[in-house]
């Protein structure tokens, strides 16, 4: 009797464990994401609708993502959010897998956000844009003349000396300065760096702080500085209700368009649910929640999202100006190894001034 009871218990345990692991395998996905995806308002509707648990791990920067992936086992991760410009190297490294284009509402996207040169390889789709925005000029309209902010070169004159903070990310900042000098970010070379260097160093003289993402918002919101060069809707829009004086603009020289893409891992443990998650992200409902997440706001890539945004949200995002803004924006520089190193060296040199 005792033996049979023991065997029954053992069987129940083994069966239970098998079932629980089966349930675990089907109903969980693991996603490497940016902080906006961790907002419950965004994630919970998907989890409830699909009876799935989405395990989210936040990271900052593609370098950090690569180091996490390198330390993981195949199948550990299902979905990856990444800078749009970094998609090709992830495809080349075999990290991202193919997605069925017909399963995604790509016709509803802003045409510039399809980014086929980044997302499509050999005719196969590997990622889609979920959000985008700009590295440009964010400012407090009560402390500066908003008209001045439409010309980037005012920042390296003396007018706002000591009242500017720089966003601490060498690629967009060098890109922005090069645009201020009338250069194309896509065709930057080592020969352009001396001129950029002079302007960057002049800019540093006018600068009170060089700040990371969190500090950028803090210094602008607390009045430590009046202008955040490199900022944009991602800094000010989330604060638009409480601090309506914080604003952003694309100057006449244009701004840098950033975009975040989402894709499914080539070795995803749960690829079907991962694709469902991507579909949710690019649906108007997912886009609206993500675009106004508690971490930061950004422009949704799917134009149909407009119907779900309030007038205040659209105003904070400058939604109605997007067609014109998109036509004037350029993409992040994409330097090769040598130029990338030279750019980072230049930025670090500037920081040490």
């Amino acid at each position: 009797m005792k033996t049979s009871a023991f065997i029954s218990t053992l069987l129940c345990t083994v069966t239970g464990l098998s079932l629980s692991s089966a349930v675990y395998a089907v109903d969980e996905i693991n996603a490497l994401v940016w902080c906006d995806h961790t907002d419950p308002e965004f994630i919970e509707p998907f989890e409830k609708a699909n009876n799935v648990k989405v395990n989210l791990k936040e990271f900052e920067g593609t370098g950090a993502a690569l180091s996490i992936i390198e330390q993981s086992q195949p199948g550990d991760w299902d979905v990856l959010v990444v800078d749009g410009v970094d998609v090709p190297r992830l495809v080349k490294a075999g990290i991202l897998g193919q997605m069925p284009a017909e399963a995604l509402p790509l016709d509803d996207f802003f045409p510039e956000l399809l980014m086929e040169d980044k997302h499509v390889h050999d005719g196969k789709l590997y990622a889609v844009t979920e959000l985008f925005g700009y590295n440009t000029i964010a400012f407090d309209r009560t402390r500066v003349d908003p008209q001045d902010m439409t010309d980037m070169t005012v920042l390296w004159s003396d007018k706002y000396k000591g009242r500017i903070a720089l966003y601490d990310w060498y690629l967009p900042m060098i890109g922005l300065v090069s645009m201020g000098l009338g250069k194309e970010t896509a065709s930057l070379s080592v020969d352009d760096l001396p001129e950029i260097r002079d302007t960057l160093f002049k800019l540093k003289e006018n600068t009170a702080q060089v700040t990371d993402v969190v500090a950028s918002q803090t210094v602008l919101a607390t009045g430590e500085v009046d202008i955040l060069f490199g900022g944009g809707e991602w800094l000010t829009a989330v604060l638009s209700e409480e601090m309506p004086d914080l604003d952003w603009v694309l100057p006449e020289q244009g701004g840098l368009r950033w975009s975040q893409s989402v894709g499914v891992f080539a070795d995803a443990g749960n690829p079907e649910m991962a694709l469902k998650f991507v579909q949710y992200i690019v649906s108007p409902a997912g886009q609206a929640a993500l675009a106004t997440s508690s971490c930061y706001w950004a422009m949704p890539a799917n134009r149909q999202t407009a119907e779900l945004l309030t007038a205040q949200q659209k105003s904070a995002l400058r939604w109605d100006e997007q067609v014109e803004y998109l036509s004037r924006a350029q993409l992040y520089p994409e330097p090769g190894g040598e130029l990338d190193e030279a750019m980072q060296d230049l930025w670090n040199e500037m920081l040490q001034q």
Partner: protein
Amino acid sequence: MRDKLSREHEVRAWRFVLPALLWTLIFFVMPFGFMVVMSLWDRIDNVIVRTWNLNQYREFLLKPYYWQALVNSLQLTVTVTLVSLVLAYPLAWIIAMRVPERWQRLALLLAIIPFWTSYVVRSYAWLLILARNGLLNKALLATGLVDLPLEIAATRYATVTGFVHFFVMLLTLTIYANLKQLSPNHVRAAADLGAGPVRCFLHITLPLTLPGIMVGAFLTFVLCIGDYITPQILGGGNELVLPQVIMMQISRRADFPSAAALSIVLMLVVSLVYLLCARWLRLERAR
């Protein structure tokens, strides 16, 4: 029989030592070895190339901003250590020598209360105090002591302040422990022989508390020179210290060989300081 007993003792001793050995091997020797190997690799066109070379160390020697980062780290750390020491010694002395025995525990508790809050939160709290619109400037402006707000946040002064707040507590503890071990008879004997309080302090108390000072100062140096958070939050990105440069290599470029080489340079500096401390000031007396 005797051989057998001594072998059993040896086996038993190894069993006791084994967990510590394994721990050190797995969590220090192996990661350190891997870091050394990584620092001897290269990164070309965003790909880590596993060929042995000294390129990362050559880069460190050739690029001025790497050197500048190391110089900034050393200047900052030496300043923090000295300022913390100057503030901590009197505090420890007062607690050990002037506060009644029954209140000393409470005094120590009050001294270490800042340890209870998160390091990051404490740094941000200092930012709120030192900022252009912060509490300090508001108070100075309100009292008419200054006409314009002082620029303290986002400078090295702010970083030093944040660090000193933390390390004064650490040094107070090590110096206090040393002061409590001193026999009062040394000072009494010197006084009997005609030495005044200042001479007693300079020739008796201070030399005998050097081990406590050095242990605290060395811990301060090690923790301060490797810290990334305080310079990042309070320094305002206006100058870089070496840990910030290391972080940039990892988070922005995934340049692990460069980050590993810079980390080893940092470890070499710490090792050098340890050797200097141990040799000059007989650190082993602290045991």
